[in-house]
């Protein structure tokens, strides 16, 4: 497969949030505004890129029995680096909002999922591209979600007013709003896929939660 595919697949075909359904916790928690989504997405992208490359580098050295603890250590190192960099250089307001979610990137299933499912089996370059693609896919999905929620909640985008005199819609700003908007997004994905399948004359059944879509436990 081409190198470009490793990057592109994360953006749409295997989008971590909308297709693989990974990383739901940060998705629901920080997608209250477009700005927070962008910050969280970029922080996760950095961790994904770093951890994928590092894990791919040590994949032949680390014994299989202790690979998960080793991966967690590597991911934790990159997450802590992100935390320190954000403390030093990020805008104070963004840092305060994302503060409690940054350490949680360590246990973000996207990061560990890609480490186990991809980086531990592929070359350094491919793993880097995969991390970058998955990270951008996560960022885009989060921003779409955050943008819709922020617009519906306050009529603003990136904290700039788009529609004057918008009646505040509090539900959208709270976590329950994230569930509702995400539900519509997933329904939209299914509609698109149904159409695509019909065009080529196939039948599409929406995926159920099963082991075939995830190979973390190598079943």
């Amino acid at each position, binding site marked *: 497969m081409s190198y470009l595919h490793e990057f592109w697949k994360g953006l749409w075909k295997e989008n971590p949030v909308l297709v693989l359904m990974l990383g739901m916790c940060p998705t629901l928690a920080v997608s*209250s505004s477009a700005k927070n989504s962008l910050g969280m997405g970029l922080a996760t992208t950095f961790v994904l890129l770093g951890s994928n490359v590092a894990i791919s580098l*040590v994949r032949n*050295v*680390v*014994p299989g*029995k*202790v690979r998960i*603890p*080793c991966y967690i*250590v*590597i991911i*934790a*190192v990159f997450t*802590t*680096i992100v935390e*320190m*960099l954000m*403390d*030093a*250089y990020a805008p*104070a307001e963004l840092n*305060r909002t994302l503060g409690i979610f940054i350490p949680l990137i360590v246990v973000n299933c996207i990061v560990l999922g890609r480490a186990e499912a991809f980086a531990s089996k592929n070359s350094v370059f491919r793993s880097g591209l995969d991390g970058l693609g998955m990270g951008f896919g996560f960022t885009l999905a989060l921003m779409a979600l955050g943008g819709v929620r922020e617009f519906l*909640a306050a009529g*603003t*985008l990136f*904290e*700039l*007013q*788009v529609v*004057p005199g918008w009646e*505040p819609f*509090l539900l959208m*700003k*709270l976590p329950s709003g994230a569930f509702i908007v995400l539900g519509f997004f997933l329904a939209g994905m299914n509609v698109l896929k149904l159409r695509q399948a019909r065009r080529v004359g196939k039948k599409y059944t929406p995926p159920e939660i099963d082991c075939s879509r995830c190979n973390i436990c190598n079943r």
Partner: protein
Amino acid sequence: MKDILRLCLSIGLVCLGGGAALAFVNAKTEAPRRAAAARTLVDSVKLVLPPETAATVSAPSVDGVDFYAAQDSAGRTIARAAVGSSRIGFGGELKVLVGLSLDNRILGVMVTEHSETPGLGTKATDRKAQKSLWAVLAGKATEDVFPPNAYLDAFTGRPATGFSLGGAGQSQPVQAVSGATISSKAVLDAVNTICRAAQVTEER
């Protein structure tokens, strides 16, 4: 036995490498991190102090309230700022920053940290200017550094001797924001804590 050694060695090496990387980044970012933390505090403290303020100097804390002395360009103290907190917010702790004049009147109140409900509790805590996207695109947006908030502005100009929520015969009443009573009370609680600490420092 040999296997265990191998496993321990590989985990140990990974941890060692990770530790080294962290130590390096920690050393590199230590100064910028401290500068950023100090800058954030100074920037917000300046908002509640008179415009003549040239420098802010940390002063001794009293009862958990941190004081800062504002000095003009000649080095004379012209006002004070105090940061106090309250734990009775709807979302837990919130931090309030108050500017105090030399005759102990309130110059400005601002909530610097909170976790109140967006849209409800934040009516009593947030000073937020709404910039229009279209104005920004047209290049006509203006920066309002200290936007008004009816509740927080109710304290401004009054003597810092303690406040109470409404009620006839009460001293220095302020009107709580409807729909944000708990957040209003928490802000009031923090302001009163600061007032008490300010009086203690006056007596010294």
